[in-house]
């Protein structure tokens, strides 16, 4: 059996793919596992020993004809078709696309042959998005910043790959030796996800006063920040490895540390892969449930505005449990203690829709919105039925119905997961005649209307127990 796994995003996501690959190898011991990554991020994957063959998408080479001559589209198409044709000739039995981007979905569709079983995003014959499996549809609807999902990407990748994770799958590298010192990563891929340099200096000053050895790590983009911290802290307890390590060397450094401190970025996932506990500074627009630490005993400190997270709070997290932090419990389903309310926000709705959870206890305002959703669905169903029966339909009303649903999803985050999933199902309607597409659209509105009704008049015992 030949399996292609696609992960053409950044190093953090590549490291998050490792557990799925490890469990895939256990599921198919004799399969030939191929792995497609970007050439510029290949280094992050090169120690993935369960992979038999690596493929590298060389974006720079593909783009270079266009960079020298903006009209030379065919030059780029020629480069692109080489790797696509080579991949297609492999006749893969399975393609597992763990990238979720439009580009990756086109690659999946182009490389798949008739016999290929596809998991994750692909394209229909008329090039619209096609999501064949429920797990990837879950990802499409519920995952992302500002959404209510609490499954880690590591778990979602494994769900899409249809594998069962075991604890052993979490660790890529196994190093032996004592653990001492703290490793800090000052940067992140985007500015909004970084903690201010002056805060880092404050924290590191406090730590060196406690006689802790601090190792600074990061890429070339972080060199300037590191130099500023070194100048401000002035201590021989500081070791500067910024811009000087490969991923494997970085893993070794992290494996020998008591703690890793850093924002939502690649090194956090390297720390996860060696079982190093983290203090994750979850600042800016990120969702730590999805991309935070996976090692038991790690802590997450959340602040939308990076300035609101003080050095003192981070310092306290190392020496005593910080009451303001989320503590990683290492469980697979949801990896964090949730400060006493496991169903807060839209997560209860997500559990209800996707995981057989009880009907959430909706507030009076939520019920009003649910009634509105039911009315909108009834209106839309009436119009769509006209299309199916070849009668005059007011398409504007259908557009208006979708607009109202979008507004509700932006207004009420408790109910948003319902509407997100409705739109995912709707986006996944395959090509067909107008009547066929109308029939499938009708089913989407019927589902949403029925869920709204169930939310207004719950019939499960659990809710009755809760009163």
């Amino acid at each position: 059996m030949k399996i292609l796994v696609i992960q053409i995003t950044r190093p953090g996501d590549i490291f998050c793919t490792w557990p799925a690959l490890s469990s895939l190898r256990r599921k198919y011991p004799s399969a030939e596992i191929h792995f497609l990554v970007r050439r510029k991020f290949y280094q992050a994957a090169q120690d993935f020993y369960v992979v038999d063959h690596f493929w590298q998408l060389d974006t720079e080479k593909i783009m270079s004809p266009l960079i020298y001559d903006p009209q030379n589209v065919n030059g780029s198409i020629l480069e692109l078709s080489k790797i696509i044709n080579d991949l297609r000739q492999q006749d893969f039995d399975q393609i597992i696309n763990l990238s979720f981007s439009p580009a990756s979905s086109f690659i999946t569709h182009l490389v798949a042959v008739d016999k290929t079983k596809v998991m994750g995003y692909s394209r229909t014959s008329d090039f619209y998005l096609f999501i064949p499996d429920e797990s990837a549809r879950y990802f499409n609807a519920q995952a992302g910043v500002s959404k209510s999902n609490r499954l880690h990407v590591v778990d979602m990748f494994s769900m899409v790959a249809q594998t069962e994770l075991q604890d052993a799958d979490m660790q890529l590298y196994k190093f032996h030796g004592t653990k001492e010192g703290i490793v800090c990563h000052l940067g992140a891929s985007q500015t909004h996800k970084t903690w201010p340099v002056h805060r880092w200096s404050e924290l590191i000053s406090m730590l060196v006063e406690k006689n802790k050895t601090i190792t600074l790590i990061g890429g070339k983009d972080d060199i300037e920040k590191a130099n500023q911290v070194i100048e401000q802290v002035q201590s021989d307890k500081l070791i500067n490895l910024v811009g000087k390590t490969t991923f494997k060397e970085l893993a070794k450094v992290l494996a020998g540390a008591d703690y890793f401190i850093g924002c939502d970025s690649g090194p956090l996932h390297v720390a996860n892969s060696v079982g190093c506990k983290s203090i994750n500074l979850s600042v800016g627009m990120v969702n730590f449930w999805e991309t935070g630490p996976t090692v038991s005993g790690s802590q997450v400190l959340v602040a939308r505005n990076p300035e609101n997270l003080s050095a003192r709070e981070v310092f306290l997290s190392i020496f005593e449990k910080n009451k303001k932090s989320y503590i990683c419990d290492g469980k697979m389903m949801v990896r964090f203690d949730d400060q006493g309310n496991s169903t807060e926000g839209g997560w209860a709705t997500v559990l209800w829709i996707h995981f057989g959870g009880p009907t959430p206890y909706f507030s009076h305002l939520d019920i009003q919105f649910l009634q509105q959703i039911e009315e909108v669905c009834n209106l839309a169903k009436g119009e769509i039925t006209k299309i199916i029966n070849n009668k005059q339909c007011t398409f504007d009303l259908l557009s208006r119905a979708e607009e109202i649903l979008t507004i509700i999803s932006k207004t009420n985050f408790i109910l948003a997961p319902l509407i997100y999933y409705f739109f995912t199902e709707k986006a996944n309607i395959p090509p067909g005649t107008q009547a066929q597409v109308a029939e499938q659209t009708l089913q989407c509105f019927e589902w949403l209307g029925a869920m709204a009704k169930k939310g207004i008049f719950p019939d499960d015992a659990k809710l009755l127990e809760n009163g």
Partner: protein
Amino acid sequence: MSKAELKNRLSTTLQNMEKLTQQLRETKDYSQQAELYFLLNELIIEQTESTDENSSYSNHQTR
């Protein structure tokens, strides 16, 4: 090459590609060659986005 330079270089191409893919949709050209143009268009969009090859979870055009 900096991100800004790259974005600048590819901006004209991106405009042309968007026109081309729209044309392909209108003419219902669903060949493999046409799909390569769609893929290239997406790769160029990724290069010109400020986030760079990140997990661009959304932005899928729907039917």
